[in-house]
């Protein structure tokens, strides 16, 4: 892997981890715009049959075993970001497979 790609991965991952693990802990607990709007419009609870997936490891953005807390939120956030990163690197690699290296790729 070229150094500029490695740097992108390191810098990008570091920012994502900082946001997922630390900044997200200070997020507002108020309902988001869609939830709030639904509340105000009087949309309450499931109207149609709901399709629930049992929590595998996470209860919303916390570990399901230890409930809410800084580390619980941080681990859940970093794990989720890591899963997304892994999926996209895999998908991207599959899509880019067999492509010749782009000319002038190292120019920045």
């Amino acid at each position, binding site marked *: 892997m070229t150094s500029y790609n490695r740097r992108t991965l390191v810098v990008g991952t570091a920012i994502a981890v900082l946001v997922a693990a630390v900044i997200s802990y200070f997020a507002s607990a108020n309902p988001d715009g*869609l939830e709030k*709007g639904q509340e105000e419009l009087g949309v309450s609870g499931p109207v149609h049959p709901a399709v629930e997936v049992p929590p595998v490891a996470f209860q919303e953005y916390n570990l399901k075993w230890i409930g809410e807390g800084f580390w619980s939120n941080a681990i859940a956030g970093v794990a989720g970001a890591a*899963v997304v990163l892994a999926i996209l690197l895999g998908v991207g690699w599959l899509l880019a497979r067999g492509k010749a290296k782009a000319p002038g790729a190292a120019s920045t």
Partner: protein
Amino acid sequence: MHIASGLLSPSVWAASAAVSGAAVAVSAAVAHRYVDERRVPLMGVMGAFIFAAQMVNFPVLPGTSGHLGGGFLLGILLGAPLGVIVMASVLVVQALLFQDGGIEALGANIFIMGVLPCLLGAAVRGLWLRPKPGAATYAVTLALGILAIVAGATGAILFLWLSDSLPRSVSLAQAIGLMGGIHAGIGIVEGVVSAAVVKFVLAMRRDAVLGPLAAEYAKGVTP
């Protein structure tokens, strides 16, 4: 702004799943033209960043918060097809592992937070790729960033209305008005954050933002 489980009727979620499924399939089919080894790390870290950023609810109005959508930003940085693929991945992980957004609402959520904003982002992509993006670029980005969020929220309300999930006492126009108002504030943040992130990524990896079509852009053609 994820649509929760139990709010969409079977016909609405099936139709939205078909539309978003088709959008993802088309994106995947054409993606090889837009992907190269410079862009794969950018796709990965942008997905991780958007997953993380969506955890950060910021206050907008009393008792109300908002979070970044991210599709608009992806449309600018990667174009619509790759943007849709990244956004769909984020939404699938949120729905399957974090109970954020209903499983049956996944198609609808990919539409309102992926397809729609990615297309709007792709519409301003060309402005950012010029040698010196000026005040007009920022103004258009802010305006379309607001539109991306308001359109997404409007889409959500339309899906609920078509599903007969809105109370009879509220009209569709009232519901759209209320949702649009709440989301305009969130949209301002979306526009500003998108512009800031695009500026940051362009400074760091202009080559990865340009992608395999860099040569065409250099000639002044916007493919």
